[in-house]
């Protein structure tokens, strides 16, 4: 009797597992993990794929919204080579770490250079580790400057101009000059790097040497920490993306450093700043170019994949222009393919994409290194210390550089 009940339960579970839309019983299942598919873009892409490829089942595991939590889930699964995920849907900063640990298959022979040309250059650079390609970009992302078109006629080009305009227009606490991500976390590094690059400095040079302790870097950090309490609220040192967005979207800031996702939210009906915002590349000092920190997601192929060919067929399918467009239209994802920025349908829905394209072309990956998490931590701690006045910008840069050297030297 008891046995029978268990058997029944087992059958019921098996049935439920296969009953999910258009699955073929017995066909290999390839899985990947992403945040919850709220827009339904993945479901549409997967059902299209399965209709065209009845011999493969694709399963999206809808994981936690936190990027770090999903990185940990992939890390645990891939280090155990348990075969849960044949496809690794990954953030650009995971590439060196995952590749260096031998968790990913090189995609060099699968995606020829001619094909790579069709993607945004920064996304391809961020997908490459030690000369090999490990990721096919699906959606792009980059930091940028939002501004209020009703207050600012022309976006500032230099850092000085930005601070001066912010100071002139602000009326705190109702209206602050500028908000950005100032909490001690990964977002702070993204914001800092853009300023650092705009001042012509960098963390590592082309050969991987630490060049962070330059006079330009000190000037960059001096400028950034000078904003706090002057044109940026004192609380900016607790802000993540959403905190900054809330202030800006409620009309309490002239400028904001943030990612493209804000655009759709700030422009929706009911938003106090709808129709009053513009985007521009981050400023720079005269003689330099404004830079953007590259974000974005793409597909890797796990070395422990049980069905690598099936997994690759899905990756190749999902990264086609049509599918990237679905993900854009359903969830606002920014395509990683250049051609889509000239697509009439996308341009009609998002006319600002011509501005965005310029920003994305200038996007640069964060230091590409398997120990990036440690490098990032060293930068976070000392930039945070400079922002709250616990260290002078000079000290902070020196100590951060020294720590990064220690991490790389080990």
């Amino acid at each position, binding site marked *: 009797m008891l046995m029978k009940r268990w058997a029944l339960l087992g059958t019921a579970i098996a049935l439920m597992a296969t009953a999910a839309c258009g699955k073929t019983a017995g066909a290999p299942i390839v899985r990947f993990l992403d945040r919850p598919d709220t827009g339904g873009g993945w479901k549409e892409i997967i059902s299209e794929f399965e209709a065209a490829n009845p011999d493969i089942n694709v399963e999206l595991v809808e994981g936690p919204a936190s990027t*770090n939590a999903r990185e*940990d889930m992939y*890390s645990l699964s891939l280090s155990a080579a348990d075969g849960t995920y044949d496809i690794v849907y990954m953030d650009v900063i995971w590439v060196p*770490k995952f590749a260096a*640990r031998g968790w990913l298959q090189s995609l060099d022979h699968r995606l020829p250079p001619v094909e790579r040309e069709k993607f945004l250059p920064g996304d391809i650079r961020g997908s490459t580790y030690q000369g090999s390609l490990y990721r096919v970009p699906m959606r792009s992302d980059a930091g940028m400057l939002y501004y209020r078109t009703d207050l600012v006629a022309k976006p500032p080009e230099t850092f000085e101009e930005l601070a001066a305009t912010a100071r002139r227009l602000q009326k*705190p*606490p109702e209206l602050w000059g500028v908000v950005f991500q*100032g*909490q*001690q*976390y990964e977002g702070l590094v993204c914001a800092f790097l853009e300023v650092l690059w705009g001042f012509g400095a960098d963390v590592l040079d082309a050969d991987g040497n630490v060049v962070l302790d330059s006079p330009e870097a000190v000037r960059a950090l001096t400028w950034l920490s000078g904003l706090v309490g002057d044109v940026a*609220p*004192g*609380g*900016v*040192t*607790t802000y993540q993306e959403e*905190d900054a967005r809330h*202030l800006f979207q409620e009309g*309490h800031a002239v400028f904001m450093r943030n990612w493209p996702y804000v655009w759709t939210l700030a422009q929706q009906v009911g938003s106090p700043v709808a129709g009053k915002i513009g985007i521009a590349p981050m400023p720079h000092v005269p003689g330099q170019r404004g830079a953007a920190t590259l974000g974005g997601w793409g597909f890797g192929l796990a070395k422990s994949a049980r069905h690598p060919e099936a997994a690759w067929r899905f990756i190749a399918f999902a990264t086609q222009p049509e599918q990237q467009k679905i993900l854009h239209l359903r969830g606002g994802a920014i395509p990683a393919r250049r051609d889509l920025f000239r697509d009439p349908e996308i341009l009609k829905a998002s006319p600002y994409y011509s501005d965005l394209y310029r920003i994305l072309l200038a996007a640069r990956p964060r230091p590409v290194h398997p*120990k990036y*998490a*440690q490098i990032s*931590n060293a930068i*976070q*701690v*000392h930039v*945070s*210390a400079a*922002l*709250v006045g*616990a*260290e002078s910008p000079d000290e902070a840069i020196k100590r951060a550089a020294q720590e990064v050297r220690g991490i790389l030297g080990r």
Partner: protein
Amino acid sequence: MSYGYVALAAVLLICVIALPLAVALVGGATHYGEVFSDRELGKVAFNTAAFAFASVSLEMCLGLLFAIVLHQTFLLRGIVRAIALIPWALPTAVMAMSWKWIFNDSYGVANDLAIRLSLVGHGIAWLGRPGAAFAAIVLADVWKTTPFVTIILLAGLQSIPRDLYDAMSIDGAGPLQRFRLVTLPLLRPSIALALTFRLIQAIGIFDLVRVMTGGGPADSTKTVALYIYDVLISYGMPEYGAALTGVVALATFLVAATFGALARGRARA
């Protein structure tokens, strides 16, 4: 038969505690030297010790006060006792999120109250300054765990025979003397218990800080547990993480045992 049960329990404990612990300690064996030259560990250990000292001493004082109040007989005492437990019953991550909002610089309740009471002229970034952020996590922890101390001490108070107080009163002792000569000595086992538990939990604090500040600003609220999480998960260094965990677990045990014994020991003197 009874030995059979003991053996079963022993096997279970060995499988789920002793073996994994041994594997972790041996796995980190070659890294113990690094632990003692780790500058970051020194910094986070200092933060953790300061946090444990500040939060646990406040909790013990307040807990004792609340326990004494709740021990008195008054109308609706049962309901008040239940209400006093609510902070302890809330999931830490949820209540930490609420504290984060309370301390928000532009729309938080803390700033709103402070401005209305004219304590400050404009909003303060509570979680955005090293000292204030540290005070904020101590406050949140005190709010959350004082009920735990209260409950243990209340149980201790209830086990003290009434006759002792009556006898003292007959001998002419005032309330302060009764507290010093009867309550405090007889409460020491409970105090030792609460102290031991609280120290272990305070040294291992993770969720509250992770949600409220993430360890910032400038690492001012980064505790040992947050650092070990970084080493293990973000940096992907399981061996070093195991060594760190071993050292920290031993240190926690020593601290808790020492203070626990101190609190208990004086009772015999």
